[in-house]
C-alpha cells in the first residue's frame, strides 16, 4: 500500500495536500526553536555557560531527573511486568491511573504532591526528621519530576514485556528456572530495548518539567525554573541564552544515550 504511494510518478493531489499540511506542522515545531537559536550569539552563549548559577542548575536538573528515574524504575518495572502479564486485578483501572499524570495540569499535580509532603503532614514531618526535605529540597524536585514522568516508563516497559512471548517464560520454567531467574534471564533482557527507551523518555520528561517542580521546590533552582525566573525578572533577552544552552545540552545527552543504547543492542 505504501509502496504505491511512494512509487506514484504522477503527483497525486491528495499526496501533495497531505505533504503540505504535514510540512506546516514540522515548520511549527522547528521555526520557534530555530529563531531562538538565531537570536543568540555564540558570545552570549559562552558567557552564559560560564555562569555558575546556570551550570549548577543544569547539572541539578540532569541529576535529579536521573535520580528520580532510577529510584522509580525499581517499582515501575515490576508493575509494568505485572500489567503486561495480566496479573493485576482491575487492570484497565490501573492502566488508567498510570496515565492520570499525563492529563492533569502539572501545577495541580504539584499542589497535590505538596499537600502530601509539606511540613505539617505526618509524611512531611517524618521525612523532615529523617533529614529528607521535600519542600525546597532535592527530594521534592525528584518526586515532582517522577510524578509527571513515570507514566512514560511504565507504559513503555509494559509494552516491552507484553511483546515477550509467554511461551518463552513457560519454557524457561519448564527447564527448571525459578520465576526470578525467568524474569532476569528471559523477560527482562527481551523487553530491555523498550524499557531503556522508557527510561530515557522518563528522564527527558523529568528534566523538562516545570509546573510541578515550581510548586514544591522553587529553590534549589532547576533550569526550567531558572529560565522562567530570568524571563520574569530581566526579560526575553536574558532568558534566551539559558534556554538555548539547556536545549543543546539535553539534545547532546539524548543523542549520546540513544547511540550508547543502540551500540549495546548490537553488541
Amino acid at each position, binding site marked *: 500500500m505504501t509502496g504505491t504511494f511512494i512509487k506514484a510518478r504522477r503527483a497525486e493531489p491528495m499526496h501533495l495536500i497531505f505533504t503540505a499540511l504535514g510540512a506546516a506542522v514540522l515548520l511549527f515545531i522547528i521555526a520557534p526553536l530555530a529563531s531562538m537559536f538565531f537570536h543568540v550569539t555564540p558570545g552570549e552563549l559562552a558567557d552564559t555557560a560560564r555562569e555558575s548559577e546556570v551550570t549548577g542548575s543544569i547539572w541539578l536538573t540532569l541529576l535529579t531527573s536521573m535520580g528520580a528515574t532510577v529510584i522509580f524504575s525499581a517499582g515501575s518495572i515490576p508493575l509494568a511486568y505485572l500489567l503486561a502479564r495480566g496479573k493485576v486485578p482491575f487492570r484497565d483501572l490501573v492502566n488508567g491511573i498510570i496515565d492520570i499524570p499525563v492529563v492533569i495540569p502539572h501545577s495541580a499535580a504539584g499542589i497535590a504532591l505538596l499537600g502530601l509532603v509539606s511540613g505539617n503532614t505526618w509524611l512531611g514531618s517524618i521525612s523532615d526528621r529523617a533529614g529528607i526535605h521535600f519542600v525546597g529540597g532535592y527530594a521534592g524536585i525528584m518526586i515532582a519530576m517522577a510524578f509527571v514522568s513515570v507514566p512514560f516508563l511504565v507504559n513503555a516497559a509494559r509494552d516491552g514485556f507484553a511483546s515477550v512471548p509467554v511461551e518463552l517464560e513457560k519454557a524457561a520454567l519448564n527447564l527448571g*528456572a525459578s520465576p526470578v531467574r525467568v524474569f532476569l534471564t528471559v523477560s527482562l*533482557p527481551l523487553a530491555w530495548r523498550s524499557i531503556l527507551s522508557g527510561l530515557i523518555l522518563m528522564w527527558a520528561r523529568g528534566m523538562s518539567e516545570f509546573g510541578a517542580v515550581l510548586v514544591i521546590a522553587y529553590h534549589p533552582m532547576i533550569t526550567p525554573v531558572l529560565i522562567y525566573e530570568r524571563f520574569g525578572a530581566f526579560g526575553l533577552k536574558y532568558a534566551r541564552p539559558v534556554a538555548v544552552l539547556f536545549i543543546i545540552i539535553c539534545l547532546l545527552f539524548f543523542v549520546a544515550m540513544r547511540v550508547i543504547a543502540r551500540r549495546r543492542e548490537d553488541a
Partner: protein
Amino acid sequence: MLEVIGLSKKLGDFRLNDISFDVASGEYFVLLGASGTGKTVLLETLTGIITSDRGRIILEGADITDEKIQKRKIAIVFQDQALFPHMTVRKNIAYGLSDRRISRARKNDRVNELARSMGIESLLDRMPSTLSGGEAQRVALARALALDPECILLDEPLSSLDNNTRRKIRVLLRRLNREGITIIHVTHDYEEAVSLAERIGVMEKGSIIQVDTPENILHHPRSEFVAGFVGIKNFFRGKIVRGRNNGRDHSEFLTGGTRFSVKADIPEGECFALIRGEDIALSPVRPSSLSDNLMRGVVSDISKVRSGIEVVIESEVEISAVAADGLQKKTGIEIGSEVYLSFEPGAVRILEV
C-alpha cells in the same frame, strides 16, 4: 510411569473433561485430535504451567499434581520451539543446567554430547533466528533433554516442517524413543500418529474418547473425527518388499494372506498401507482390462454411507469399497454375490513405521 486420573480444567469457554490415561515407561504415546480439542492445554497441565481444577497426575508412583513446575521431571517442546532468541544455541541448551550445582566443564561436556546426539554440533554458536525449522526443532529437543526428564512432551513437533525434514525428525524421535525416552506427542495428523505411536489417545472437545493401538483406532473408530479419515477401514500392517517384474523395479506390500503392488519409494521394511474405499473398483465379472491388483471375493455387507454405498468384501483380506448409489441397480451386486475388486498401485498410501 505416567498416570493421569480424572484431570479437569476450565479455561474460559474451554474445558478439559475428566481426562484419564496412562503411559508406560519407554512408550511412544500420541494424542490425536483436531485443533482446539485441548491437546496443548493438556500438555501444559501435565507440566504444571496450567494448574488443574481436579484430578491427579502420578509420575513414577509419585503424585506431582501440586508439584512446582521447576521440580517436575517432565520436559515440554513447544510447537514453535520457544528458543530464547537472545541466547546462542549453546546457551539455550545449557539453560536447564545452569541452576544445577555442576561444574562448568561438566555442563560443557553435556551440551556437546547432546549436540552430537542431535546432529547440531556445528550450530552451537549460532543465534536461533538463523536456524531452519528442522534445526530449531533439534535444538529444542536437545534443550529439553538436558535435564534428563522422565518423560518428554512434544506439541506438534512436525507440523511446521517440510516433508524431507519431517522424515528426518521422525527418525530422530523414533531413535530417542528406542533409547528409552518416554514420549507423549500431540498432533492433528493421523498419518503422523499412526506411523509413530505405540498407542494413540484420541481427543475430542476436551475429552479423551479412545485410547488404543493405531490398528484398533482406525479399524474400530469411536469418534466422528477418526471415522472421517479417508479409507480408514482398508488399513493393513505389513511390509514392503522390492523386486523386479518384466525388467521393471517393482514394490509389493505383504500382509497376512495377501500381497499387492504399490508405488512406494521407501526402503523395504515394516509399514502400514491405506487404501481409500473410493479408489477400489467393483465388478460382478472379471474385468477385461489388466490390473496390477485384482482380487476375487464375496460381498458380506452393504450399507449406506454419506458418499454412496459401502460394500464389504471377504477376499484374501477384508476390504471395503465405496461406490456410487446406482451400483446395485446397475450390476445386481448384493450380499453373498461374488465380485472382483481392483485398485491401482498408486492408490495405496504407505506409512512408514
